[in-house]
């Protein structure tokens, strides 16, 4: 009987090359954010060289900035802001979006309508414009930046989570659980959520990239992290005049932002290959 045919089938747990590279890079970035300051050869504020916009050298691998500070150290200190702030903001955004999305999908009715329209309203405001208004109203500080970024990315996450949860909610195994008499909490935690994890991780990565770009953009405008501290976006802005001298000081933070977003995207690609069946 063909019923027994599948017993000997091996389990396959292979990672694609893109995903392996992505994971390695993301781990590297996280380590950088956590331990960056300890690895830095100088303190972020120290002026170490009389030459401004110095080229790459053994003493200063990424050269120096417009005040003669060591770029490698500035970059390592800045990683904490760029990666850390974006991470906290994305976690907040996704947790809020997922909770509201599942609530919408399971409750349906007016809960869904109200939440849906609220998300529509918020999503209609461009992120950068929203950020500018918030900063203009409340000034710029770490908590304001984090909250602002989180709020502007909640609606997207909400919509994604709601669509996923609606799909899964309509599947037979959820019906079976309901027919068994299970409470909504069980259905959400045990039946729906475990099947959302992979696509949600993908979504998390994508949103993280957007938040990094939003915060970097804000810093580039001078409205993000304030001097003497600087995230990577601010580093680009500080050293923008160095572009005429082809100074590494302006290119290195820009490349770092690009590398960060690309590595996250690689990771997502690896994930979405696995989750294609769940996400349309």
């Amino acid at each position: 009987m063909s019923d027994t045919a599948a017993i000997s089938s091996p389990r396959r747990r292979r990672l694609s090359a893109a995903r392996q590279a992505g994971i390695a890079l993301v781990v590297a970035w996280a380590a950088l954010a956590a331990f960056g300051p300890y690895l830095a050869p100088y303190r972020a504020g120290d002026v170490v060289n009389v030459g401004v916009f110095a080229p790459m050298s053994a003493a200063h691998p990424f050269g120096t900035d417009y005040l003669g500070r060591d770029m490698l150290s500035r970059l390592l200190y800045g990683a904490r802001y760029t990666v850390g702030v974006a991470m906290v903001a994305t976690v907040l955004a996704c947790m809020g979006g997922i909770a509201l999305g599942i609530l919408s999908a399971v409750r349906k009715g007016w809960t869904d309508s109200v939440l849906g329209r609220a998300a529509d309203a918020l999503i209609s405001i461009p992120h950068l414009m929203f950020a500018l208004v918030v900063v203009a109203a409340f000034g710029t500080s770490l908590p304001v930046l984090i909250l602002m970024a989180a709020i502007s990315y909640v609606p997207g996450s909400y919509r994604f989570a709601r669509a996923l949860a609606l799909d899964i909610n309509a599947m037979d195994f959820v019906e079976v659980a309901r027919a068994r008499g299970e409470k909504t909490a069980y259905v959400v935690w045990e039946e729906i959520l475990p099947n959302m994890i992979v696509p949600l991780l993908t979504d998390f990565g994508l949103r993280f990239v957007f938040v990094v770009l939003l915060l970097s953009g804000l810093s580039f405008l001078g409205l993000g992290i304030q001097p003497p501290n600087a995230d990577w976006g601010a580093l680009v802005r500080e050293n923008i005049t160095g572009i005429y001298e082809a100074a590494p000081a302006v290119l290195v933070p820009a490349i770092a932002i690009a590398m960060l977003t690309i590595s996250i995207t690689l990771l997502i690609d690896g994930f979405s290959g696995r989750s294609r069946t769940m996400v349309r």
Partner: protein
Amino acid sequence: MALVEVSGLHVTAQGDGGAPSDIVRDIGFSIDRGEVLALIGESGSGKTTIALALLGYARRGCRIAGGTVRIGGEEVTTLSPAELSELRGRRVAYVAQSAAAAFNPSLRLMDQVTEGVRMRGLMPRAAAEAKARDIFRALALPEPDRIGARFPHQVSGGQLQRLMAAMALMTDPELVIFDEPTTALDVTTQVEVLRAFREAVRERHTTAVYVSHDLAVVAQIADRIVVLRDGAMRETGPTARILSEPADSYTKSLLAAAAPRPQQSQQQPSAAAPLLEVHGLTAGYGRIDRQGRLPIPVLRDIGLEIRAGSALGVIGESGSGKSTLARVVAGLLPAAAGTMRLDGVALAPTLEARGLEELRRIQIVFQAADTALNPAHSVERILSRPLAFYHRLSRGEQRRRVRRLLDLVKLPMALLDRLPSELSGGQKQRVNLARALAAEPALILCDEVTSSLDTVVGAAILELLAELRRELGLALMFISHDLATVRAVCDEVMILYAGQMMERGPGGVVMQAPQHPYADLLASSIPELRPGWLDGIDATRLAEARGETARPSPSDRCAFVARCPVRDKPCETEPPPLRRFTKGSDVHCHRTEQELLAQQSSRAGSAVIVPLQRLDRRA
């Protein structure tokens, strides 16, 4: 000389690991001109792969790795893309399983049917359309002169399937490949489509390859059969020989599974109190309006009884509301009206209002075995949950019970920590059954539990169900579109049509001597495992089968009236009365038992053909 010669055909798929795996290997057969060859096998047997190879085509990720395919002496596997296009456009045509997916919804049918010949400049538009109308007529399509002006959604599924065949026949191809062309159709529609295909193929002396999993269908249409399994040929021979004296063990098991033996009905004491009683059940979707009507009614005034330990078969075609009935009884869809009683105690319509004990005693098993199992949970976890939920067993106790359950449904212990995606279709359905059994229910609602499974695997599940009934004294509500399946399991049968109960009664009576005109049509539409069955069907029945898709009646009148050969004046206005017939079945019909019997005997003699008066013509 044979038209088609295939030898040593070998198709491989590029596996995930890079190593190619065989899909079919060592296939060799030939087809003479005017002959119909059937490729038969279960899913994964490679039958479609072989059919596509005749077009010189291999699906994405697959490759024709070896062998020769000659059509009219020309080697197909080595043709250039331009030559292939010529081959597929003129000489070899393909009719796919789902016509609904093969037509462009926004173009008129005539444009699509004639597109191929016009595109190739084979004939001018007027000639092409005239020819299309001839083919429509040959395929017994209604209003052959005007049907071409319609859009795909304006014709029924059976008509669309014939239109697709018309498209294939436009170029007078030497070879037509039918790939499961009637599998997606309801059984009463299938008869007419089959008949039309066969007539068209015979008249034109077309050579054809007919791909199917259904032996009874193949028996009607094929001259020779090739039996396939796991990509290899098991047996080949003339249809009559394969059916009467199969040589291969697999062919024998296919034949056995195609005709399940009727259940030896244990005589239940009819005085036993019913376990489940349903009266006047009405259900559907949408919000109930002021007059108490549903915007989308699905079930209307359904009544049924299931005694402890007995099995009720609910038969109906797609859209008859049979799955909705299961959902209403399970509490997933609250009824709009009607009462349900479990062991004489009123059963609340909603899940929230039902007690744990009531929930436990009714369990449901769904059709799609794979979506009914949470892909993130292991088999052990899936089976443990009802034990913890209903019986509050300790961990150790759960572990012991789960092993007993696996034993009960004949699954090996090795599956305990598998995820559903690592199981075969039959195994998944066994896990679904085991989960329902874990609750120790009194009644299991089986919603098309074998329809998504292959014949042989499905037959094993049916056997298991019968065994569980005997051993555990379970009652079943067994929902299916397939009479043979129901016959194998149930002692009582109820026939639904468009949400209305047409006939209900003891299995033997309803199956062997159906009284209601629809029940009669349904019973006679099921292909029998003997060549020539199709020819024995008279014109009246074909005309009935031609009816449009079943639609719930907007009022209380009979939903079958538009297709009914014996309809009477009151049928169009009055709801039909429920009559108890002498043999013990209840029939919803305006006609009396004598009238129905007289009508049937006239049909059996086929001397008198009852004229079919179409409803719209009379109005």
